[in-house]
């Protein structure tokens, strides 16, 4: 019946690290924001740290819908006009990951640059 506290704590840490579901996450992932204006992504280049999950919030300031899409990131989400979308990306290895707006693919283009951080907190 007596399980050492340290072991319980250890199991909890393992569970948290392995699952890291939103409700259980100790530290919320860093948030990065992008806007869609006149079918353009602002900023169109976003630098994020490598090896960590990131919460991307995309605000669609246009009245028309847009679909955030990236083959490299395996992401796809419709964002209605005047709304925002939450998209989780990563942990990613360093590199460039292009994304685009499927509804306006000639103008709505952007890149996420993943950079290795010396010591990412």
């Amino acid at each position, binding site marked *: 019946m007596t399980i050492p506290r340290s072991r319980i704590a250890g199991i909890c840490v393992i569970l948290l690290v392995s699952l890291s579901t939103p409700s259980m996450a100790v530290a919320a*992932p860093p948030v990065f924001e992008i806007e869609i204006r006149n079918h353009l992504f602002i900023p169109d280049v976003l630098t994020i740290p490598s090896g960590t999950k990131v919460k991307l919030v995309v605000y669609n300031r246009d009245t028309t*819908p847009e679909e955030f899409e990236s083959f490299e990131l395996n992401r796809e989400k*419709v964002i209605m006009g005047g*709304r925002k979308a939450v998209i989780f990306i990563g942990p990613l290895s360093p590199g460039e990951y292009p994304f685009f707006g499927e509804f306006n693919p000639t103008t709505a283009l952007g890149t996420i640059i993943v950079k290795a951080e010396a010591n990412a907190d």
Partner: protein
Amino acid sequence: MLINSVIIVLREVIEAALLISVLLAVSRRLQLSVRWAPVALIAGAVGAALYASLLDSVSELFDGVGQELINALMQVCISALLVVIVLLVARRRERLGGPSTALIGLMAISVALATIREGSEIIVYVIGFVTIESHRASVLLGSLTGAGIGFSVGVLLYYLLLAMRVSHALWVSLTLLALAASSMCAQAAKLLIQADWLPSGAPLWDTSALITEQSMVGQFLYALIGYEATPSAIEVVAYFGSIGIIIASALAGWFVFRTSAEETSG
């Protein structure tokens, strides 16, 4: 805008069209009524319009990932329905009879769900851009062209399946349905990773040097077998796990039904 409309609508239509044509061909081969198809398509279209109009509020649910969760749920439901359909068809193929109304009902529901899933995105796009005067003509023309190409691919597959020998056609159909089910499971896993409901991981492999997802071949393979150039471990497990479940249950069902049929007949 014109070419873009063609691509957007084609991408959505082709997935549903392939599923519908396989199920229609299966119905014809098993000499079942195909009257379920128009009913399912109309129900799906109404559902798609409703879902599209609710997408605004749906997206806000569950801390902004409602869209992913509902879409994933639909994909998992279609996938589960297809598994049961594969089983029932395999059983009828052995001339063991079985409930045809259940089979027809399941086919209708899966097609209606697929139409809601793919149709709602088309509706969001067309309604969103057709209101802009300068885009109207190209959006409408492009969408019709895309829908037409997708429809033609479906018709082609339908007649290909009908032209084959019955035994071949059923095996090809069952394989295509099993692959569609697995692909939808993998898509659901991808959506749940995007929503942070499943843990993300590094891609297991990268075949984008061979076939990019953007290419025509990549897009077609995506619609047909759920091709993904950089899948994560969970997507791969979901995909091959579903294939495993389908094969295992088909084999189990086949042996059980076969034994019971032999017992009753002999």
